[in-house]
């Protein structure tokens, strides 16, 4: 437990010093939520802007932490041989993986609390929010995106991985119905968005925050499939050195 705590503190310290990562995991989601909640230019299907945006922005935050931030950091640590060196200490590989997973969960907790707090300032109605469902959605989203991020990080060189993660982030942001409804996309792209991990997580989050089941079980099943497939992919593709 002591070794895990030491490594978790190190992971969080390194993250806190990385300005680009802080911009990605906190700056961009909070900026998008603040801007579009106060500038009424999005088609929001009759909902208030903030109520429409909050679930998608939480999904975006999960994606940015579990996929992009974790993936880029791990990719560079792999290139710099940090993983190799730490693997040769008494910490060992299992504790190193667990410390990384815990650091992602800590960051996500901070993100969700800040985003919900900010949304409340802008007048969001959170009366129907189901906390247990929110935790489940975050867990599945984290597994799915961490799997995708680590699959790329485990094979690509640091710089190529950086570019690939950012490009994928942008694509998943645009096709996932995060800042506008998926119905606004052309029909073929609408369906691509629905079966994408970002689209599935955004749909599940909308049901969780509204306390409804507009998207039914299909989005949850899609997200579950992504979680399983991405973890299997990471397990098979990831290389420590």
């Amino acid at each position, binding site marked *: 437990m*002591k*070794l895990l705590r*030491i*490594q978790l503190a*190190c992971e969080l*310290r*390194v993250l806190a*010093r*990385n300005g680009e990562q802080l911009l990605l995991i906190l700056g961009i989601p909070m900026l998008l939520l603040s801007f579009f909640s106060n500038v009424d230019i999005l088609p929001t299907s009759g909902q208030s802007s903030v109520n429409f945006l909050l679930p998608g922005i939480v999904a975006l935050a999960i994606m940015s932490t579990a996929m992009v931030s974790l993936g880029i950091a791990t990719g560079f*640590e792999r290139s*710099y*041989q*940090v993983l*190799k*060196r730490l693997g*040769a*200490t*008494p*910490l*060992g590989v299992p504790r190193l993986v667990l410390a990384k997973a815990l650091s992602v969960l800590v960051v996500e907790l901070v993100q969700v609390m800040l985003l919900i707090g900010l949304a409340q300032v802008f007048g969001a109605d959170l009366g129907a929010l189901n906390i247990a469902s929110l935790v489940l959605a975050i867990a599945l989203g984290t597994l799915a995106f961490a799997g995708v991020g680590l699959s790329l990080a485990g094979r690509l060189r640091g710089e190529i991985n950086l570019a690939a993660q950012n490009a994928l982030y942008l694509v998943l942001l645009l096709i996932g119905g995060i800042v506008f409804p998926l119905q606004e996309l052309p029909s073929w792209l609408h369906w691509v968005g629905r079966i994408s991990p970002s689209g599935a997580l955004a749909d599940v989050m909308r049901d969780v925050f509204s306390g409804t089941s507009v998207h039914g079980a299909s989005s949850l099943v899609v997200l579950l499939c992504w979680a399983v497939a991405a973890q299997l992919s990471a397990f098979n593709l990831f290389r420590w*050195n």
Partner: protein
Amino acid sequence: MSSALHASENVGLSVSHLVIKYGDITAVDHVSFTAQAGRVTVILGPNGAGKTSTIEACEGFLAPTAGSVQVLGLDPFLQRKQLNRQMGIMLQEGGIYPSARVAELVRQYCALYGNGVDADVLISRVGLQSVASTTYRRLSGGEKQRLSLALALAARPHIIFLDEPTSGIDVNGRDLVRSIIRELRDAGCCVIVATHELDEAERIADDVLIFHRGNVVASGTLEELRSGREEIRFRSTSRIDLHSLSTTLGLPVEQTRLHEFTVAGTSDARVIVQLTDWAKANNVDIGDIGAGSQRLDDVFRRLTAESAS
């Protein structure tokens, strides 16, 4: 070629018929050797000779294609957990978060090993007090090497693997690294150093292994490697007819570097007299004449040339 440096019960590292292949390429080809606790064993070889692959197999980073490795009596690949507590590692480069600060890293590693090493004492032992709050990415090449050495020392190791430990370090830093290596040896640690710097090997080695093209081409103490290999060395800026000089002396003469020549196979004073007589007769200026055992770089050059042919 198989070799055993010293038969002893005090063996820190034992490598037996080690083979490492990357696809069709054989990086290490049936290498065997042992290294003792309380001695510094230097693995010498040019780039691509198989040094780093051998060390990585010993550190547990690479699974051998064939053969076996025992480190402190443990299999480094299968018994990694037990070994990690008592093994210090200094990678050839990297291994450290660029944004981490020196003192934080040393404290982190001391805490991870939990062997009672005081981080502040360690930082000052490697001479990094003045940069204790500096991030790794802002350190000079030599400071990075010293930090990497400090992280290896945090293990209070029984065996330590140092890959090119003096690469990029200035003269004072090299003296510091050498003194730490001597301290480790005197404390009974099995010290394994991989380097391609022959001068460095000559200064720190108790035992030497020379790798070439995935094989050990020679092994032994420095004295053993140099014994029976007497030579006379001299300098000259004149143009020397090597054939004429060699015929006069009855011994092979070769140019080893710019303006440096050796007469192989002897250190006899009578040959030195013959040499100076020949120089006078042929109007050749020679100087800095010395005689004795062959230098390690000459031994290395000869052995790797023999292996290549």
